[in-house]
């Protein structure tokens, strides 16, 4: 008798809980007109690139309203980091954005180095730039292939992965990891560049620009794609700024903000490169910006390869990382936009609070603004052009 009651209690509790937990969509199901229906895109959908759920209110194929439901793979990285020593957090920053891990490492390393006042040897800075640019290329290549899949072209992925493999091999030779590199240490690097890195880099730079031309001929300039993307998902400069959109998605809207240029960290002020921008802010401009950015990255790589000095790769860093109390915010231009790390240190070997400012979250928030009124296929195309990485949204 008693047991039964308990079971009943649990049941009612559960019901209450689920009722509380149901996410209220911004549009009510009852308010649908006769022509409209709700379509759940995700959490498991081929083109959400992970566990993202987008609830679409559709009229036929036209999107009337949408709601991005995030948090399916929330892993509470920020909270976890409060219980880790500073050195241990480095591999976790890899896992925020597994496609351009080096840039995320860099933002975190910069933050701690700033807190501790460490200056990095010049050679290490050069290596950092090289790894970060290779990583940017790697990330953009994956975006290109995934975008091809999104719009239904199945061949680009094979071509882009051929070059991506070269890049990954280079970074793997340097750091040991293929995707989650855990490349940086406070003060520089543990290991110098591997033998043969420069040769493979030279070879890569030599033929990469031709490959980009090939990619553009295959997909970006294709008339079917240009028809699908030009004039679709127009993101005005003002909207982009007000939503905090950064990275190539912002630069597509004719806004030349690139942290490497506007707030140069490390040694980026030494390099000569262009900030690529689009004109109209439509989907196609965002694609083109990414393609151009790969070319610019190659330029930076070339300059870095020529200018790299010999010398130390590690600064003098105390064995136990214990930054003085204080707070710091550093930001880098990752492949997706501005990635910022905010740390409050209380003088112990663990951060008191850590906050990651992830670009994909802000970039996703603008989706509602630009995708309403387009078709289902456009939602996919627009989402692809924002280049989202889901673990980074959910953190």
């Amino acid at each position, binding site marked *: 008798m008693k047991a039964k009651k308990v079971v009943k209690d649990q049941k009612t509790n559960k019901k209450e809980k689920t009722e509380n937990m149901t996410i209220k969509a911004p549009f009510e199901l009852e308010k649908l007109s006769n022509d409209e229906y709700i379509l759940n895109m995700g959490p498991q959908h081929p083109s959400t690139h992970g566990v993202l759920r987008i609830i679409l209110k559709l009229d036929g194929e036209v999107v009337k309203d949408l709601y991005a439901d995030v948090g399916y793979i929330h892993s509470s990285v920020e909270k976890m980091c409060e219980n*880790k020593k500073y050195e241990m957090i480095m591999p976790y920053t890899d896992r925020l954005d597994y496609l351009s891990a080096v840039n995320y490492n860099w933002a975190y390393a910069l933050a701690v180095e700033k807190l501790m006042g460490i200056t990095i040897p010049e050679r290490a800075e050069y290596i950092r730039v090289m790894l970060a640019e290779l990583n940017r290329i790697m990330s953009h290549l994956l975006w290109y292939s995934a975008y091809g899949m999104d719009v239904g072209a199945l061949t680009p992925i094979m071509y882009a992965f051929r070059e991506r493999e070269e890049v990954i091999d280079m970074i793997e*030779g340097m750091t*040991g990891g293929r995707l989650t590199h855990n490349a940086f*240490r406070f003060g520089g690097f543990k290991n110098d560049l591997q033998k043969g890195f420069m040769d493979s880099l030279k070879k890569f730079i030599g033929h990469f620009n031709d490959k980009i031309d090939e990619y553009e001929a295959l997909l970006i300039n294709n*008339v079917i794609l240009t028809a699908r993307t030009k004039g679709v998902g127009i993101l005005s400069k003002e909207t982009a700024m007000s939503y905090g959109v950064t990275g190539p998605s912002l630069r597509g809207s004719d806004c030349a903000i690139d942290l490497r240029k506007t707030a140069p960290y490390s040694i980026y002020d030494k390099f000569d490169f262009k900030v690529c921008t689009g004109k109209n802010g439509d989907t196609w401009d965002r694609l083109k910006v990414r393609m151009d950015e790969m070319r610019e990255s190659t330029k930076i790589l070339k300059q870095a390869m020529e200018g790299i000095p010999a010398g130390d790769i590690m600064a003098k860093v105390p064995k136990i990382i214990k930054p003085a109390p204080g707070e710091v915010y550093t930001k880098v231009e990752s492949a997706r936009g501005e990635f910022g790390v905010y740390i409050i240190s209380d003088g112990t070997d663990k951060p008191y609070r850590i906050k990651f400012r992830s670009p994909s979250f802000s970039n996703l928030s603008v989706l509602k603004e630009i995708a309403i009124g387009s078709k289902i296929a456009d939602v996919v195309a627009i989402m692809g052009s924002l280049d989202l990485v889901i673990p980074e949204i959910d953190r």
Partner: protein
Amino acid sequence: MIKYIADIIKGIISLMEGLMVTLKHVFRKPITLQYPEQRPDISLRFRGRLVMPVDPATTNNRCTACMLCIRACPNHSIDCEKLIGEDGKPKPKAVSYTYNMGSCIYCNLCVESCAFAAIIMSDEYETGTENKASLTLDLVAEKYELKGKKVAWWTSKFKTEE
């Protein structure tokens, strides 16, 4: 009307360009590796699973059970038990070294913290298993023999430290 025709011609040209790219690739050699037979050339610093290799000079592992790696590990994947001698005092020797491959994130921090080069990330990447229990390994009892190009790198590491 002129725009209509120009659009068609422009479209056809762009489509032809795309077709030419794929046609060119028909005559290129496949780049894929036939995996189980052909294996990739793995780089020296590749981070496979953690091993505690047997030192060929002493035919024993180099671990002194100093617990540095355990403190360096971000998610407690390693555990180590120190040898207690007959006199009741701890000896610089590990009795067991438990490594949980399931939670390991292959970050290399333990290897870097090790002052004696007792542990190293091997080039074993096929670590999948059907049995969860087999993910927990005792590296001391395993007596792993390091092979391949990592050996020279590993030995060079501990010669400079000694």
